[in-house]
């Protein structure tokens, strides 16, 4: 069977690729597109390391077919920093909210998506929003604190 031709937008740039009908978005990102920031932890929707946004909505790219990207807007971790790092990225570095870093791209994508919807989340809300992002290293506490502090900074409030 011939490959499917897909036209999409990734991190604001038009992008075309060929894929198999059963290929996941994650496979295409990491393979032909060379966007290896999204990680594969499980391939079954459990770990969140592959988190991207599809038309602004947080999804697991391992549970999305690449063919579904046709005509849609995709954002990956590679698009998170502009000229400068995103405040979440800076805060994660400052507060050492990562160790091995495998979960970090997914956590950052998820946290950014939370703060876009809810600039003033409670700790409870942060923990529930990030429940689909597994981290085997940090014990989560530093991640949660870094997200809370970034939110406070971005609101312009004091710590």
């Amino acid at each position: 069977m011939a490959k499917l031709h897909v036209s999409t937008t990734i991190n604001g740039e038009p992008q075309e690729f060929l894929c198999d009908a059963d290929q996941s978005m994650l496979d295409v990102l990491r393979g032909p597109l060379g966007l290896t920031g999204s990680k594969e932890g499980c391939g079954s929707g459990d770990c969140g390391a592959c988190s991207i946004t599809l038309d602004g909505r947080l999804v697991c790219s391992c549970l999305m077919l690449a063919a579904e990207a046709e005509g849609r807007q995709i954002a990956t971790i590679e698009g998170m920093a502009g000229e400068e790092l995103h405040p979440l990225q800076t805060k994660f570095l400052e507060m050492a909210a990562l160790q091995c870093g495998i979960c970090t791209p997914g956590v950052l994508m998820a946290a950014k998506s939370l703060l876009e919807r809810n600039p003033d989340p409670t700790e409870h809300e942060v923990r529930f929003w990030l429940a689909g992002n597994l981290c085997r290293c940090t014990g989560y506490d530093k991640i949660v604190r870094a997200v809370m502090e970034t939110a406070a900074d971005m609101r312009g409030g004091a710590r």
Partner: protein
Amino acid sequence: MTDIQYLAPRTLDEAVQAFAASSGKGRILAGGTDLLVQMRAGTVTPHTIIDIKKIGEMTAIEETAGGGFRVGAGVSGAILREHPKLKKVWPGVVEAANLIGSTQIQGRATAGGNLCNGSPAGDSVPAMVAAGAIVTIQGPKGRRELPVEAVPKGPGRLNLEPGEIVVSFTLPARPKGSSDAYLRMIPRTEMDIAVVGCGVSLTLEKGVCTAARVGLGAVAPTVLLVEGAAKALIGSKLDEAALDKAANACRAACRPIDDKRGTIAYRTQIAGVLLKRTAAIAAERAGRN
């Protein structure tokens, strides 16, 4: 090597045609949170994947003329939660759908997929059963309707004919003093499969329960409508005796399995406990409506 075909039809007719033409080797793709996992595990090997998310009727939430709602089978949990009115009228249905998986899973998972995957532990199903949702189905022979509890046949099996697609769920209008709730028991606080799930929908008039429906999940091969429990609640003031009776009716309806998540005895016991807690939440909400 792959000879799989991916189709994303824009109309239901095209989808039904393609699904029927795939002669059993086609699969509907909604959110893909079950299907893609199964394909990857090799337990499902479709030749044709029919993505229904470009079909307007299947991705819309509409208010019906009488004040109910028609929820497309392809609407994700995240979209359900963001609908301003639906969660006020059917909070239990929305909270049940929102228990499915993580934020990421919510962005994709649909109530249609939850029902059609056929798991007895699907979280949105007992809430839909309690709500009295009517499922609209379209297939090669046209359209028909079924009460949601009549759709599952057994684990992974449905009372659907070849080529039939679940189009939408119709939730009825609510009389004053009505509400619903859904609770599940899981060993952790997030990201797990229900040991028991319980949906209760009820109507109160001057403190007396005048209508009730109870749906129970994960305690039998299919999600159950527990009419005995509803009967025990109707006509009562939801006093302790009525709640005990309803809880016992739930326990009597259980035909659960023993597994690592819960023993038969535990699941049966919890079914009654959840009935009481869920009914209390539904009643408290109904009192405010």
